[in-house]
């Protein structure tokens, strides 16, 4: 059997339909079916699945991205390296990995706001920001972010002035994007760790902009 015969569109669609119609409708039971099969076939040990869940629930998440942003704010050399090659720069922290092999940092400015989406699926820099937010994967966000980014931003409480241009990065190839937010005024002299606590997940996707709310 050649590769092409194994990748027949009508055949795949028919398997999809059969499974979708005949598996129990509860997604938890569907996943249980896959887990049973995987364990029975010796693909993976159940304990390993526990460890993967724990890794993404406890250790990998937006706090990682926040540390990278804070370092870029305090360290001009790191800032330059991050903008030049973000995949290499985040390896300083050991944050490289799933979906960050071609990472690009895009920096906000007084007259520029960056917003990230993937309209074709929901590509996201997992090893740096953890699991994507539910809204990031929603059809509404995927459909609207490219066409009416200002209306989407307003729903997130971001009201952009007319003289701030919007760049929407539709990350449909293997490049992933990290928005580098502006460092808020009033944080002069703050230590990296304290700055990192200001940086929100949404700011690194571009659905938040002003991080001064965390100061005080």
């Amino acid at each position: 059997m050649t590769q092409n015969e194994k990748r027949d569109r009508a055949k795949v669609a028919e398997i999809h339909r059969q499974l979708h119609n005949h598996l129990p409708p509860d997604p938890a039971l569907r996943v249980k079916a896959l887990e049973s099969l995987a364990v029975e076939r010796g693909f993976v040990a159940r304990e390993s699945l526990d460890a993967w869940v724990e890794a993404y629930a406890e250790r990998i998440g937006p706090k990682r991205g926040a540390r990278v942003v804070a370092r870029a704010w305090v360290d001009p050399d790191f800032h330059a390296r991050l903008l030049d090659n973000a995949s290499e720069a985040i390896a300083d922290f050991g944050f490289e990995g799933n979906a960050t092999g071609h990472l690009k940092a895009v920096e906000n400015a007084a007259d520029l706001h960056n917003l990230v989406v993937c309209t074709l699926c929901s590509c996201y820099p997992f090893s740096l920001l953890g699991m994507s937010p539910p809204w990031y994967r929603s059809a509404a966000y995927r459909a609207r972010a490219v066409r009416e980014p200002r209306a989407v931003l307003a729903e997130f409480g971001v009201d952009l002035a007319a003289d701030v241009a919007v760049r929407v990065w539709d990350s449909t190839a293997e490049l992933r994007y990290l928005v580098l937010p502006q460092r808020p005024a009033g944080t002069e002299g703050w230590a990296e760790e304290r700055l990192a606590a200001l940086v929100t997940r949404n700011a690194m996707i571009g659905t938040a902009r002003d991080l001064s709310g965390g100061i005080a």
Partner: protein
Amino acid sequence: MDGLHDLGGKEGFGPIAVTEEDPAFQADWEGRMYALSQTVGAEDWTIDWFRYLVELLPPEAYITIPYFEKWCLVALTGLVNSEVATQEEILRAGSTPQSPGQPSPPPQDIDTVLQTVRAKCTDFSRPQERGPAFQIGDAVVTQRHSVPGHTRLPAYARGRHGRVVALHGAHLLPDAVWRGVEAAAPLYTIRFEARELWGPDAVEDDAVMLDLWEPYLLGV
């Protein structure tokens, strides 16, 4: 393929369900599914084959079922298609507990997992066989027609004029990889003015940036 997954610019969706912070997983089964996605597969799977399997979900399922349930159906269908399991075995696994079969591999602890995540930092670039056809600043126009199979030129950006803002060397080409052929082509970041994409009511100076492979582009 010109599927319903290609949502960019579609109208009629309601407000975004905004959240500021979320647990990594909204339900236990989501975490299990993510873990399974990182540990189960067949030898002939690629990221592009996985994405094409998602696109081939029944359209009504694609629009209605949760994100990680799509991953689950895709994994199951993919295993059937790669002849790792039969449809009947999967439907049985959905209704009755499985007997222990093959011995499990040694369990991974969290440190092993964190190391594995780092090792999954995949390089999709490939040596360029020839120089890129376009340079920064060049005006380009995208292909007007969709093509069969898996491809990554969104419908809203078909037949649209843009400008090259970055070159990324050659990257693996999804249009080839999904069908098991390893081929690469120059990848560019193209800037499209919002008015070119959406018409005169869009805001001047707003823009959408897309990473597109050379076969999606024509010179102008």
